[in-house]
């Protein structure tokens, strides 16, 4: 190369570096802003004393039951008709908080929020380990938190995001375990990885998809080890399952397995798949390219198998009743890792290819253009993260600071709840949450509490949201969704509950989504009448009193 050509090349390289730094700065600002929105949302929810997402209160009831040494997996056909469809680990981990602070929402939400930060950290660590680029590792972690799907469920009193954290840690631990030469160190690492996968499974059943990927990965790397550890994994996991089934007289089986066999709605599955793709395509594509690269030109990592397994199986299960966008949270973690490694390899110019018919066909001809490709790559990587930040962009459109930002950039409230969401709450089963709660919401929640307080203590109250019963120190009667889905598979006899309604034994009934079995709702309609509706968080709470009956 002549001196002037070399100068030209160096100058092009310098310009590319400067543009890269500016663009990566913009990507960081956008994703950090989404991080600020996320922290604001978490603080807002941690201070909110009622259910924000459907079912949070029942998670709290599970925690309280465990704190008193009781299983929530009980006979749902007799008073108080309470059961739980979720495994126990999340609730058990919160028991010390219940002992210290009683029935409160804040610690469950704070715990979930912290798990998302740990998850983002683990994603960043995985990317750094494979790609050796700190900025990209940071962007990958922030990209996880910026996904509206992660944002929705991050600070909720729900177990899903804790499961995701356990899955991520388990996968990161297993990623290079097979290559550890020291036998005892390798065994310790494998054992720890599987402990986290079991923890994930006993936080929520969907972790099975990650376990499938982990076992497949170990099988490819070393079938003998995979079978040995797989048997151990099955014995421990199955043993806990058997103990819980025996310890709860079979109710654990009925409520966590039978109740989770639900109808499939293709329209819901395709809608959520579309949302997942439209919001995250700019990171899904590089992740998919990286999977193809590993498949044909390098060794297949656990991250690739994890991405494939969780995406395909989550896409299918997201079509079942009660599923939602949260089912994609693990897939999002996986593509954040893969796209991060892809980006880091581009920036660090660190690609290696097996010599085979495909590399001879597609890679060899490009070798003389590596300089140009490298410069283009420097531009593309930050643009991908900028595009991703814009496609997932969400923020409140009111409140200090946010209102001004929304005005300046013309960001509109497209949800009707002072919040801008990339979907706008339009897709079936896409969680209509993310907006901030208001003082009015809290006041209205306490209006419902006051209504219940006015009912004499010896008269029970049926509330579809557990918070109102917990705030008034009353028994929590029913976990409606559990009753409803078990009624669909003929595993719930509602006669005792319906009998109580027909006898008008409840002083007040509070309904929200009306997720009760049909015969229960029919009995409520016949024997109770609506007194008023109280809005909270954009939902309408119906207050019903016993209807005057003609004899």
């Amino acid at each position: 190369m002549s001196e002037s050509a070399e100068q030209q090349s160096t100058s092009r390289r310098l310009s590319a570096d400067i543009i890269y730094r500016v663009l990566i700065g913009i990507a960081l600002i956008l994703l950090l802003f989404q991080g600020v929105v996320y922290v604001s949302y978490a603080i807002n929810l941690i201070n909110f004393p009622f259910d924000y997402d459907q079912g949070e209160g029942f998670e709290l009831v599970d925690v309280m039951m465990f704190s008193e040494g009781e299983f929530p997996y009980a006979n749902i056909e007799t008073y108080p008709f309470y059961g739980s469809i979720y495994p126990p680990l999340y609730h058990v981990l919160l028991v010390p908080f219940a002992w210290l602070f009683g029935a409160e929402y804040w610690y469950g939400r704070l715990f979930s929020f912290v798990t998302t930060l740990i998850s983002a950290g683990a994603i960043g660590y995985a990317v750094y380990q494979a790609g050796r680029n700190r900025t990209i590792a940071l962007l990958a972690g922030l990209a996880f938190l910026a996904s509206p799907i992660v944002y929705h469920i991050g600070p909720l009193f729900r177990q899903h995001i804790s499961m995701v954290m356990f899955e991520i840690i388990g996968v990161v631990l297993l990623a290079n375990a097979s290559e550890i030469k020291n036998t005892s160190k390798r065994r310790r690492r494998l054992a720890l990885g599987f402990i986290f996968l079991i923890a994930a499974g006993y936080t929520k059943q969907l972790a099975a998809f990650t376990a499938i990927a982990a076992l497949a990965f170990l099988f490819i790397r070393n079938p003998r080890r995979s079978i040995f550890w797989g048997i151990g994994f099955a014995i421990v996991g199955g043993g806990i399952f058997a103990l819980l089934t025996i310890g709860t007289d079979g109710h654990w089986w009925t409520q966590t397995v039978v109740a989770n066999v639900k109808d499939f709605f293709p329209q819901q599955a395709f809608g959520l798949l579309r949302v997942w793709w439209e919001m995250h395509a700019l990171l899904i594509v590089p992740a998919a390219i990286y999977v193809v690269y590993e498949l044909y030109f390098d060794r297949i990592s656990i991250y690739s198998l994890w991405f494939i397994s969780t995406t395909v199986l989550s896409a299918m299960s997201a079509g079942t009743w009660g599923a939602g966008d949260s089912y994609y949270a693990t897939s999002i973690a996986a593509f954040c890792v893969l796209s991060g490694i892809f980006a880091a390899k581009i920036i660090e110019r660190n690609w290696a290819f097996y010599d085979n018919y495909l590399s001879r066909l597609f890679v060899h001809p490009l070798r003389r253009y590596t300089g140009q490709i490298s410069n283009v790559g420097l531009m593309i990587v930050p643009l991908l993260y900028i595009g991703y930040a814009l496609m997932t962009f969400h923020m409140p459109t009111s409140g200090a600071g946010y209102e001004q930002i929304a005005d300046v950039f013309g960001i509109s409230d497209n949800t009707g709840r002072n919040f801008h969401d990339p979907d706008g709450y339009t897709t079936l089963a896409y969680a209509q949450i993310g907006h901030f709660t208001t003082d009015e919401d809290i006041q209205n929640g306490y209006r419902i509490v006051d209504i219940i307080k006015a009912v004499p203590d010896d008269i029970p109250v049926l509330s579809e949201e557990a918070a109102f019963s917990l705030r008034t120190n009353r028994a929590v009667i029913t976990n409606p969704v559990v009753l409803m889905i078990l009624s669909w598979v003929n595993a719930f006899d509602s006669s005792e509950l319906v009998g109580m309604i027909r006898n008008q034994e409840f002083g007040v009934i509070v309904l929200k989504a009306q997720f009760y079995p049909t015969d229960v709702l029919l009995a409520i309609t016949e024997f109770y009448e609506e007194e008023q509706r109280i809005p909270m968080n954009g939902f309408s709470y119906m207050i019903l009193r016993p209807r005057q009956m003609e004899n």
Partner: protein
Amino acid sequence: MTIVIYQTSNNALDIEDRMLYSRTMFRQNFAFTKRQLGFLLLIIGIVGFGTIFGIDIIDAGREGGVGPVQRVALFVMALSAVIGLSLIPLGDDLA
């Protein structure tokens, strides 16, 4: 940009710190090669496709034919077989 081409399969094994390689699947240090993985995916794809499709033939009384989940599963199995086929020529590089 540094693009390293592993020149031979033996080099690929060197890169993996000379991991011992054996053709017997349940040996201590066996790891799948691209070719072996290709055959495995091809078999899984063909058997899986046949099984899923066969459900309707065996369970003839069932209504509705091939459902949406079944269609997705059929596609996944077909894809598995195609990927398997494309991996077979890649030889002894570690999978």
